[in-house]
């Protein structure tokens, strides 16, 4: 039998494979290194010792401004957006029992995008840009509600959900394209950049706005973890084990929306993370939702942080949206993982 790390106490007990814990530790170190690296690198290089000093509240004023006001919120934003989208993708893939699901494929991102683009074209000047997240989140929720209602047929089956989702996604895509095409050029450019996804100019305000969503959704996801594992065995077995499958499915859809939508609202429609991060996570840790959740989140965070770092550095003084590089970094790495697995 493989080694499990088991904890038993009068009040709580759990058990988890040892190998997975090591993988997660390595990933965590990698994650922290990328954060530090992102704080050091930029238009102006700041050496690691100085960055560390700034973090401890010392260091020069100029360095402090660059690290704490410019780079830190942007790095954290990238990390949170990546983590949120990855978690949302994992939740959807587990719910649908299909590795091809992600918020961008089943229409959640599409709903948020359509709402955001409509807002940018019709309401932004009148209402002010701070309303954009509200519109994007509402759009995502509306899309999810629509998907669930249309897929309902005395209960919802995963396959119906994903097919209806793909339909909704392309319908939302059509709305988005139409609005962009019908808008004046300046609005179209803003909308287009939003659609690519970027953490450019992220500030502490946005970090503080996004964080509460994650503080709600992650504990909820952990709470549902064992049920999710059971649900992955199929509806009949899960019901046989005592899991209320239909209620769980609705809860998971809602959970995936409140994970992805706020991230999309603040950073735009960063694609691909939600699809790929859970896959990478599955190659790293054992197949258990409670392990896959933090692992996917870390992988997603690393991906978006690296993508943003590339966007900042490679084409200076241009600042390329992170969304562009997520696929550029993620896809080859993913294909490498699949390729390596053949042997």
């Amino acid at each position, binding site marked *: *039998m*493989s080694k499990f790390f*088991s*904890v*038993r106490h009068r*009040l*709580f*007990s*759990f*058990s988890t494979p040892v190998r997975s814990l090591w993988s997660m530790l390595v990933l965590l170190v990698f994650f922290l290194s990328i954060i530090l690296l992102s704080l050091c690198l930029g238009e102006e290089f700041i050496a690691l010792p100085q960055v560390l000093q700034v973090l401890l509240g010392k260091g020069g004023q100029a360095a402090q401004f660059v690290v704490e006001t410019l780079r830190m919120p942007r790095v954290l934003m990238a990390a949170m957006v990546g983590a949120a989208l990855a978690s949302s993708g994992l939740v959807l893939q587990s719910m649908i*029992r299909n*590795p091809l699901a992600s918020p961008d494929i089943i229409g959640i991102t599409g709903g948020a995008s359509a709402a955001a683009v409509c807002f940018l074209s019709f309401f932004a000047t009148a209402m002010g840009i701070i309303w954009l997240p509200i519109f994007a989140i509402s759009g995502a929720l509306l899309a999810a509600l629509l998907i669930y209602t249309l897929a309902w047929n005395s209960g919802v089956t995963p396959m119906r959900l994903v097919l209806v989702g793909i339909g909704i996604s392309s319908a939302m895509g059509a709305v988005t394209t139409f609005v962009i095409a019908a808008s004046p050029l300046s609005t179209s450019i803003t909308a287009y950049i939003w659609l690519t996804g970027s953490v450019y100019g992220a500030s502490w305000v946005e970090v503080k706005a996004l964080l509460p969503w994650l503080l709600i959704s992650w504990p909820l996801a952990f*709470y549902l*973890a*064992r049920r999710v*594992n*059971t649900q*992955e*065995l*199929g509806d*009949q*077995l899960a*019901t*046989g*084990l*005592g*899991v*209320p499958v239909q209620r769980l499915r609705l809860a998971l859809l809602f959970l995936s929306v409140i994970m992805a939508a706020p991230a999309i609202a603040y950073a735009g429609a960063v694609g691909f993370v939600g699809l790929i991060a859970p896959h990478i996570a*599955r190659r790293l840790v*054992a*197949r*258990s939702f409670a392990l896959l959740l933090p692992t996917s989140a870390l992988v997603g965070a690393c991906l978006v942080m690296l993508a943003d770092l590339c966007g900042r550095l490679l084409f200076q003084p241009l600042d390329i949206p992170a969304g562009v590089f997520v696929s550029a970094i993620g896809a080859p790495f993913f294909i490498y993982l699949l390729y390596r697995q053949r042997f």
Partner: protein
Amino acid sequence: MSMSENHLLDSNLLSRHLGNSHLGESSPLESVALSLGYEKKNIIKSLDLVIKPNQITVLVGGNGCGKSTLLKSFARLLKPSTGQILLNGADIHSLSGKDVARKLAILPQGPVAPEGLTVEQLVRQGRYPHQNWLQSWTEDDERLVRKALQDTNMTEFADRSIDALSGGQRQRAWIAMALAQNTDILLLDEPTTYLDLTHQIEILDLLFELNATQNTTILMVLHDLNLAARYAHNMIAIKDGAVFCQGAPETILDHDMVKAVFDMECHISADPLFGTPMCIPYGKGRKVDSQAAKHV
């Protein structure tokens, strides 16, 4: 022989009688005026059926006769349109899912494991109804998972991924999961489908042992009449959503029953090894000189 009456009333009385005995064995599972259906089509109509405690009961019948549907409703996977399923005397739909899962385990037909899941991880899931989110891995959990792996001879495969197993091993892994659930009642829907003969016998032997050593009440659907006759204490033949007859296989399995339930002509003889009834279907096929066959 006398216990294998076809009359429902008798078995009802029998179970009530047993219920008052020192063993405390009332029927663990029964249906009362049960009707089942998908959409508007009724598959089972007003069925009363009592499953005998501590025995192996096998449901047989032709394709689409409603036996799988019936099994699912006994496991709370289907809601009856009218009537009730009673689990230890209580309406199964009035109990919580976990409550039911602590008393009754179901292994549906052809389950599929998520890619990469190992045998041990699968078997651990059987403990779900006994856990809550603070107590997710107690010593009982550990012990019962080990025992389930042992009982199914799967200990050496504990770390293997389910997709890397042969059909027989895979089915044993699923059964191990159901065993880890540690229930008094085990329901299985065609546990031997897609398995070669060796593995069919292996699985049925395992279930027979389980019943013999732990008194587990087993209710399953089997396609192979001869194997059903060999392993079942009690056989229930279903036809058009109703019980055609029930009782010990040796008392009910005959030419007329097979003709009526399966619409097939056959010859019944005794199994030379077990003495249980054996059904040999008529039909086309090669005929071999019995003189030549003797030398085989």
